[in-house]
């Protein structure tokens, strides 16, 4: 069985990108965009059933299959959302058709890059893919060409490229470490080979490599203090891109980190990556929670909440162990779904209100019940309240941590509570109270938002056994 499925999830976006770059008219292109992402999703689903053999470049295993399906799914729903969102942008004249063409093409390129990063079996290839993803998102963040957008894109670009450079250095170091054991050539960069031989690598070199990889890919993940690009990029870019950034790109970067964590975990003498991850995770969590209190821009606020949750996830993987890893994976999945749903809501809300300032929004549950309650549900989910999925992951994480590292767990709980306080404060102001701001009725497609929320709700109550089995395998893999 050759890698048809794996090829497909790469080929479809590329073709679509080429097509979309030339086709005019936003209705048709938007539909084409949807269709392409749908096909990609189907291809990804096919991977569940027929799994190609790992080759020197491509690999599909338990770890990344989850990510691939998640990515393609969110990509699809986002494209549905984007269709209705972009339509409004065209009408309001924030985007010109030519830029729209560019936007759709870039969207597909981004999909291609992320899928490539996920299925890449070659650490160099993975690096290239993530770099490509960064560049495309940079261009899309700057697409509105307002002062703020450009500034955000510029900041993102500089910080991102520095991060990516560090990551490359780390990759080279890994190769150097593999060199004496595996010998020159391609094999020394193939992950499946590396992981089998990693036990005999030079541990010291691995450590330095991991430092660079942590900082490099950590920048993409948005861990504090490397997070600076993230809030602005989320706030200033088009909302679908914010959704994709928070929901997917962060995960992809984190996925890269996980690959290398496994590599280190195999080597007995290497420094345990756990403590580093835990520390950065806690810093991000608490820092972001404090930052939440002074936010006035709705999208920027949820960007910070993404940092917070990335911190929690990093913490979980840093703690390790079957429970914590399971919690981490679950939290990552739930966070992608929930956060993108929230951005869908936030996007429509800011379109209706004509602003992103939360001070100009209020009483949404009165003026726009569906949007308002959707936002409430989303925030409730992201805050980790039952019966939604994130509650389960936080439950598993906190309970399993406290018995092992009471102090860490207390810090974790402190951070979570802090962030919750801030989110709830804003939610109360935006969703309840006297209606404020414009009250034009929203021309929005609620399907993507509520699909995500429904899935999160489902997961909070009942996790299907196959999914559980996957997560448990991966959790074992992560050690």
């Amino acid at each position, binding site marked *: 069985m050759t890698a048809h499925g794996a090829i497909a999830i790469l080929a479809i976006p590329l073709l679509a990108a080429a097509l979309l770059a030339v086709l005019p008219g936003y209705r048709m292109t938007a539909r084409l965009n949807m269709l392409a992402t749908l096909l990609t999703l189907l291809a990804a689903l096919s991977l569940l059933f027929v799994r190609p053999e790992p080759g020197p470049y491509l690999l599909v295993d338990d770890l990344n299959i989850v990510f691939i399906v998640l990515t393609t799914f969110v990509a699809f729903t986002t494209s549905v959302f984007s269709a209705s969102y972009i339509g409004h942008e065209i009408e309001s004249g924030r985007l010109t058709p030519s830029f729209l063409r560019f936007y759709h093409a870039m969207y597909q390129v981004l999909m291609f890059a992320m899928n490539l990063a996920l299925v890449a079996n070659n650490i160099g290839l993975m690096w290239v893919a993530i770099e490509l993803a960064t560049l495309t998102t940079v261009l899309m963040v700057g697409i509105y060409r307002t002062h703020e957008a450009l500034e955000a894109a510029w900041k993102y670009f500089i910080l991102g490229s520095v991060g990516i450079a560090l990551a490359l250095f780390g990759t080279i170091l890994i190769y150097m470490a593999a060199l004496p054991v595996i010998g020159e050539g391609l094999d020394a960069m193939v992950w499946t080979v590396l992981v089998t031989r990693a036990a005999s690598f030079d541990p010291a*070199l691995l450590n330095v490599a991991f430092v660079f990889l942590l900082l490099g890919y950590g920048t993409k993940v948005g861990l504090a203090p490397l997070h600076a690009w993230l809030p602005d990029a989320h706030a200033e870019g088009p909302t679908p891109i914010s959704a994709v950034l928070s929901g997917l790109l962060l995960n992809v970067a984190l996925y890269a980190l996980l690959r290398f964590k496994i590599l280190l975990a195999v080597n007995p003498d290497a420094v345990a990556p756990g403590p580093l991850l835990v520390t950065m995770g806690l810093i991000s969590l608490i820092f972001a929670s404090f930052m939440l209190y002074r936010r006035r821009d709705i999208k920027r606020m949820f960007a910070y909440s993404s940092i917070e949750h990335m911190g929690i996830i990093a913490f979980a993987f840093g703690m390790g162990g079957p429970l914590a890893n399971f919690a981490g994976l679950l939290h990552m999945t739930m966070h992608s779904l929930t956060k993108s749903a929230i951005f869908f809501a936030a996007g429509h809300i800011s379109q209706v209100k004509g602003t992103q300032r939360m001070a100009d929004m209020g009483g949404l549950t009165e003026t726009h019940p569906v949007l308002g309650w959707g936002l409430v549900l989303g925030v409730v989910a992201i805050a980790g309240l039952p019966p939604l999925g994130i509650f389960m992951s936080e439950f598993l994480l906190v309970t399993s941590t406290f018995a092992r590292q009471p102090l860490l767990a207390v810090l974790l709980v402190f951070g979570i509570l802090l962030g919750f306080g801030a989110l709830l404060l804003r939610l109360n102001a935006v969703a309840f109270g006297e209606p404020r701001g414009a009250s034009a009725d929203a021309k929005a497609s609620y399907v993507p938002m509520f699909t995500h929320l429904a899935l999160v709700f489902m997961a909070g109550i009942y996790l299907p056994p196959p999914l559980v089995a996957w997560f448990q395998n991966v959790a074992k893999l992560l050690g």
Partner: protein
Amino acid sequence: MRGLTFDIAHMLAGLLVLVSFIQLYQDRLTALLNVFALHALVLAMSVAWQAHAQGATHLYLTAGIALTFKAIVIPIVLHRIIVRLGIHREIENVVSVGPTMLLGMGLVALSMVVMLRVTADADPLAREDLAFALSVVLLGLLMMVTRRNAVSQVVGFMSLENGLVLAATGAKGMPLVVEISVAFSILIAFIVIGIFLFRIRERFDTVDVQALDRFRGDRR
């Protein structure tokens, strides 16, 4: 013969570090660009030497890329840009030269400590190169941190990537993937920076990053 190869590689790599220091020392944009050209040149030479030493022909390609793009094209274009923007004036460092130098020294020492200790059993050629490469990377980063001006930051970034190339070539038989990706990334990086400088020029009368920072989130 082995000894000579090693010495020359060592010398070239050391030279690269030295040039990085010179870069740090510069506080005029034009001079800075020239020095950067030199930096790229030395890089090209060292890469070429590595190609010779390792007998890896594809590294000559890398050397060529480095030479043409970084040593020639980019400096010229940047010269153009700064002329067009009319900023030949002094570029003020955040940290004055002296402390910067000291900091640089510290970084080099650090990278030595880390690397030499790390690759104790790796082959010495690669080891030296790695150490120097790391210091070049760190110095490039230091440059980005200590300069206010966008162009000089870009220069710092590129010298950082030079360090990467040095490391990549130092790694024996690293597949072509890497060179391509490096070149590719530099290319893209340069184009995007160009676009940005251009757009930025449309809107602001300077590329000074602080001007960008005047519009910051939540100040609205």
